């Protein structure tokens, strides 16, 4: 076997893995030219790594040579690692051959910055163009936009890519200056704005002319590193919220900082902050699908999410006056806020109660987690509880009571602390 290409793949997949974005959904590219691939509808996770993350795309760097020296980044200039670079053709061949065997949904191509931003961006665009035009490839393509790349190149990238992303990485300008001195917020937010404008414009044109070209139909996303700088959860979530609103982002990804760097600018940690990352994702979901605002989850007084209970339960315990909720009559929006009831169960409840008065057996069968929900609901004015509990009691019962499963992750992290201590 060709050991050169194996070496390159080893180096350039390894360097790309800290980018957590894996989504391959939201594309609308149909296979209408009898070509290869189809990216309409939802994405597919073809495999999962041993750390439990989805493998959906061939996620690689074009090269890990880089002129920048960002402290949190494994490919920073001053780091002593093996360097490599793919040719455009090598990336195309890998993508096509992996795709044909149903290993992947498509390509996620990023790169270290060699020579300058435009030179790098131009190469990324060339890979995508070649796949689309020469190979009639309709699979998913996610391109990273290189900070500082010209508007023309970003516009061209959007014609071939399904999704574009610009990583903010650090939640405040101050941290960015400390840890990534060559970057600045303006350089990151400018392409984000260009992409947003182009997406909106393309959608407007599509309404008028069916044949108008699409622009990054799966939208744009970004990533924030958690735990590499001093920001609290409130600052992080406020930034995400702002990004969702101002730039129509599809996703903000959060990446718990993995200690890849011995750079003196970085905090010394032994393990990535997995629980914190998880709680932030939960809060992000609550904002996007459950109608919660940032202020309801964290504020200036309580700037961080609680590590040992999820933010929805935490909110419910702080707002006991809203409960119990009578499931046979309450609004859908309120039912969604009950701990132990997710979107699916809430929809079933609202649907089923048109036919019959619901009782707790119905709920159990629908998949409601009663061991959590029972503290917050009534059915036909009946409660499952024989006595009243205060917030602290409920919290303890859910965490340590009968059938409570302390999170495996929590246990793992506590073990790590013990080892480190």
């Amino acid at each position: 076997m060709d050991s050169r290409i194996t070496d390159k793949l080893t180096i350039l997949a390894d360097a790309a893995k800290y980018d957590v974005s894996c989504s391959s959904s939201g594309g609308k590219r149909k296979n209408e030219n009898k070509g290869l691939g189809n990216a309409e509808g939802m994405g597919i996770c073809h495999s999962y790594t041993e750390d439990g993350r989805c493998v959906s795309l061939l996620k690689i760097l074009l090269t890990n040579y880089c002129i920048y020296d960002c402290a949190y980044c494994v490919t920073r200039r001053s780091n002593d690692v093996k360097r490599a670079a793919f040719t455009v053709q090598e990336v195309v061949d890998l993508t096509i051959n992996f795709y044909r065997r149903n290993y992947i949904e498509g390509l996620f191509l990023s790169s270290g910055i060699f020579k300058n931003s435009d030179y790098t961006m131009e190469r990324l665009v060339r890979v995508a163009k070649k796949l689309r035009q020469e190979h009639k490839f309709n699979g998913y393509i996610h391109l990273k936009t290189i900070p500082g790349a010209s508007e023309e190149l970003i516009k061209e990238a959007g014609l071939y890519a399904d999704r574009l992303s610009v990583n903010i990485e650090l939640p405040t300008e101050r941290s960015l200056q400390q840890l990534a001195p060559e970057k600045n917020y303006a350089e990151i937010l400018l392409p984000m704005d260009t992409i947003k404008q182009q997406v909106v414009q393309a959608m407007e044109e599509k309404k008028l002319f069916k044949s108008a070209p699409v622009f990054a139909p799966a939208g744009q996303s970004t990533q924030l590193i958690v735990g590499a700088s001093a920001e609290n959860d409130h600052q992080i979530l406020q930034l995400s919220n702002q990004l969702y609103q101002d730039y129509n982002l599809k996703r903000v990804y959060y990446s718990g900082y993995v200690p890849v760097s011995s750079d003196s600018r970085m905090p010394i940690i032994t393990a990535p902050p997995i629980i914190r990352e998880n709680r932030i994702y939960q809060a992000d979901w609550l904002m996007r699908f459950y109608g919660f605002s940032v202020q309801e989850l964290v504020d200036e007084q309580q700037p961080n999410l609680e590590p040992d209970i999820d933010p929805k339960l935490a909110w419910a315990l702080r707002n006991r006056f809203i409960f119990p909720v009578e499931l046979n009559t309450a609004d859908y929006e309120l039912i969604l806020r009950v701990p132990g009831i997710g979107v699916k169960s809430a929809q079933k409840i609202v649907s089923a109660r048109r036919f019959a008065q619901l009782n707790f057996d119905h709920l159990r069968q629908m998949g409601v987690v009663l061991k959590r929900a029972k503290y917050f609901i009534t059915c036909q004015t009946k409660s499952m509880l024989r006595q009243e509990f205060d917030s602290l009691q409920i919290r303890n019962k859910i965490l340590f009571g009968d059938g409570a499963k302390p999170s495996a992750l929590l246990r793992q992290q506590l073990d790590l602390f013990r080892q480190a201590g």
Partner: protein
Amino acid sequence: MYSYTYDGSFEGLLTVVFEAYERNAWPTGIAQEQFAQPGIFGETIAVVTSEQKANRVWHGLRKKLSVTAQQALYHTYLWEQPGFEQLIFDYIRLAFAQEASIEGNYAAPCVLQVQQAARQVYREKHRMEAFVRFRKTADDLFYATISPDYNVLPLIVQHFEKRYADQRWAIYDTRRRYGAYYDLTATSLIELELPHQRHATLHAAALHGEEDKYRQLWQVYFDQVNIPERRNPKLHLRHIPRRYWKYLSEKQPRTAH
């Protein structure tokens, strides 16, 4: 007490529904002919599949149910778990008995169960779309075997047709011993007289010269994207339970290269 037997096809099952209504004799058991055990009590009715009768039931249901609900019934048929025939019958009977659509009435056991069965089948379908791994043969056919928990092959054909319009491919269900073959224009269902093997593997000589290279590159890729500091075996197994590993090239032992 009436127990019905049918030929195992979906049309056959719908014919049973038709017969039960015509005779006004509700089934106490429905089973495939070859598995049916003659009962001591009651009557056994051997139903002969009739496309016309099946169609009448199906069209009748269309007036009562949405396409999604009809699809869920078909999925419940492909579910193949004990009691699925009776479940489908109960659902259809309830649908015909009610003035309004019964969809969404999750307080009725058969409605909830059909929804849950359909959901399981749908998830298995989705898993197969994800976990099928083609191997390229010397004559440029992309070949994969599966043995899904539920009979989802008919459901995944369309997905692969759209995706791999420009390559010949075949997927073979080793448990149910039939497969789908796409020849660049259309897909046909085929039955092969292969020896009964759970892992119907291809001979190394039958593979394309580049097959091994890309299989190994994929293994290299899979090993590299893992972040050891974040190891979480429980989550890993929840996403890909062990019974699916046999399909996955990345989960096979590494050969020295």
